């Protein structure tokens, strides 16, 4: 296969960026998207041009490190992460535009690499259950009904990749946040801090400069883990109750 790539190049956080066009030939359909970029980088290196910076680590779809806007779709056309996207999803001769996640809360560091520490700070605000090491009760002491356990698990699958923010027209991080609220809120252990958690996380979210959600639903469609919009409703529900001071 042969593809024309238009890739965002930007030297540093404050530098101006632009789309640069590259042509890559001999792409095998079994390659992953990032392996295709590896091949391009090898070629650039051979020509004496600096390789394109992009993030990835596990390349198994689980660490959440990778993430590119591929022709206007976060993580590209399949419902998976960028690293698990394979070239068989593209047509020979296609032109593909590759951009970094765009959100002011995710500033570009270089080329396709962005800074997502805002997510960590949202978790710091309350995305945890306070339990000190060694003070935990016996695991078998708390029963969790399977439906709650399953829903908590579903929400806990979020890998923190940021595709939801990237896809949302408002650059809101509601899906990411809702997933954590739902994960911890479904479990008995998560109850004591439930009200405080949602308030603190939402306040941090707003302070980070993410947009407000208007329930557009692009986030869930882009989410590689298929986190459903329920979690946003759950967040709103918890927030409303927390505001009213009762749970």
């Amino acid at each position: 296969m042969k593809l024309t790539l238009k890739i965002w190049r930007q030297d540093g956080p404050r530098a101006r960026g632009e789309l640069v066009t590259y042509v890559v030939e001999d792409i095998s359909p079994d390659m992953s998207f990032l392996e295709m970029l590896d091949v391009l980088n090898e070629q650039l290196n051979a020509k004496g041009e600096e390789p394109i910076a992009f993030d990835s680590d596990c390349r198994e779809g689980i660490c959440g490190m990778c993430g590119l806007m591929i022709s206007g779709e976060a993580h590209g056309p399949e419902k998976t992460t960028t690293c698990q996207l394979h070239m068989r999803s593209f047509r020979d001769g296609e032109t593909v535009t590759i951009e970094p996640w765009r959100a002011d809360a995710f500033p570009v560091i270089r080329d396709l690499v962005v800074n997502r520490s805002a997510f960590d700070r949202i978790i710091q605000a309350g995305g945890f259950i306070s339990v000190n090491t060694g003070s935990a009760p016996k695991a078998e002491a708390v029963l969790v009904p399977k439906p709650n356990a399953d829903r908590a698990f579903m929400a806990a699958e979020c890998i923190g990749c940021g595709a939801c923010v990237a896809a949302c027209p408002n650059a809101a991080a509601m899906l990411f946040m809702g997933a954590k609220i739902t994960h911890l809120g479904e479990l008995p252990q998560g109850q004591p801090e439930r009200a405080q958690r949602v308030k603190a996380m939402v306040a941090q979210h707003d302070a980070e400069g993410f947009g407000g959600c208007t329930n557009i639903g692009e986030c869930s469609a882009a989410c590689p883990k298929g986190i459903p919009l329920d979690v946003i409703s759950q967040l709103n529900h918890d927030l409303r109750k927390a505001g009213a001071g009762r749970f």
Partner: protein
Amino acid sequence: MTELTAPQGVDADYYRVGTPVADTKAPAGPIAEKWTKRKFDASLVNPANRRKLSVIIVGTGLAGGAAGATLGEAGYHVKSFCFQDSPRRAHSIAAQGGINAAKNYKEDGDSIYRLFYDTVKGGDYRARETNVYRLAEVSANIIDQCVAQGVPFAREYGGLLDNRSFGGVQVSRTFYARGQTGQQLLIGAYQALERQVAAGTVEMFTRHEMLELIVADGRARGIIARDLVTGEIETHLADAVVLASGGYGNVFFLSTNAMGSNVTANWRAHRKGAYFGNPCYTQIHPTCIPVSGDHQSKLTLMSESLRNDGRIWVPKRKEDCDKDPRQIPEADRDYYLERIYPAFGNLVPRDIASRQAKNMCDEGRGVGPMVGDFRRGVYLDFSDAISRLGRSAVEAKYGNLFDMYARITGENPYETPMRIYPAVHYTMGGLWVDYDLMSNIPGLFVTGEANFSDHGANRLGASALMQGLADGYFVLPNTIRDYLAKGPYPKLDENSPAVAEARQSVDQRVRTLLSINGERSVDSFHKELGHIMWEYCGMERTETGLMKAIDLIRSLRAEFWRNVRVLGSAETLNQSLEKAGRVADFLELGELMCIDALHRRESCGGHFRAESQTEDGEALRHDDQFCYVAAWEFGGNGEGGMGAPVLHKEDLTYEFIQLKQRSYK
């Protein structure tokens, strides 16, 4: 000081022998009481003093993340480092299958002692008894801790936690969270860590890479790290340093490890004097998706839990190998693991399952596309399980693994059997530590996969997560206390010679790498190194092969420093530069691995020397000669960059478990 002797035969060209080492920290007495006694004997630190004591932790995986959270809670000043953009992305996140704990949930006869026994046996009697017993002992606490943090383990309808069994054992003691156990456990540790960041006890440094260890007055006192975004070289000082930087399987280029996994933190410490234990012990995992071409950047593991319900086979006849597997009748299939090991069947330990798969392919009965001159793959077939349990039950248990397989290969595993092949997965070797998890450099602690300690020559499934969390939550916080209680150590000046030297060497190295401006890319060196390692230091090793590998690595290393091309500058995010530093260290480590493999003229666990096998092709140990840990001291900057390393032996004494030739038949 150290008396050095030359070993016998060809070995004399490769290494020297030094004085033995031994662990001095495990207390005497019955094994079940050692840990309690050690905790009791370890000095205490008054809570008011803890703030004045600082600890650097390199790594935010299960081992580092859990330790950071726990030490932060306790009130120490913690500085935590990872090279990813968030601590949540440490490689532990990728673990799929599960975590062991001797909770005896299923009333199937499990106990601390049995977990201890299984782990020692699984490691082919090359692990230290005291450490392993402790691991089994704290395993149940881990589950309690994680459940309290909100880790959503799989549950049964009644609300109880669910268990499954894993390779190499006959009880169900593995807790799991679908195929994402590592992710869920790590998120638990990560959240606990972030809670401490918010509380101000932990300072987090993401996108920072440790490039040098600072040793002053014989103690580990800090690190030099590069801020990967700005390129700035930073000095961080503390009263103790913990390395929890994971495994080095990426020395093989293709492995199941994350792209960034590296040996740099460990190797830099090794060069500063820390002993490297058993570097050649590598685990090759049997259930990975086979290689499809040379563009491949990594191999994908599929959880070993698949072996619970999937059946492994190859065609009986070579002629059938390119047929559609569904067309091959039962009578023409060879379920070789069930045939050779009737007691354990498809659940034999990883090293055995891997080597048998290799044997089948070497015999010419492999399946899948031709790679090179033969087929590398065997079938993992779920058709029995699907007809027995129903498709939806199989989907509930393994759905995400099946999806992953389908995505990568483009084949539907519900219909055609999957193809699997072994791949490098885990490194049992690592920096040598004592019972307190302290290396031979005082103040340098090593936890998780980065140390050599608990798995001997082979690791059983679901026990790395257990070890990481045991070290991080329960062991290190207790043992490091003993060391910190003697602090705070004299304040170190940023301009003192030890610091200046470390900083300068980092600067120098970065500048050299950028200035060579040769012809070849970093990746091309890495791939070539991986090739050498897989070929000669992989699933089967021989004396001549290893000697050849050492020569090849030496000349590759020389070429690297002459001919590598690293573009860009040191002042920005520069991923080629990061990779170059890591590959440079792998090029040195690879040689040490081969030397270790060469000197260990026995087969044990993941280390299979073709010269040492039983009549039916099983690994043959030589307990009389090799029942020891090989702790290697860096040989200094000799010829070709590295002098001959010095071997320090730690004899393994088995007080509680009797040594047996391992058998899974």
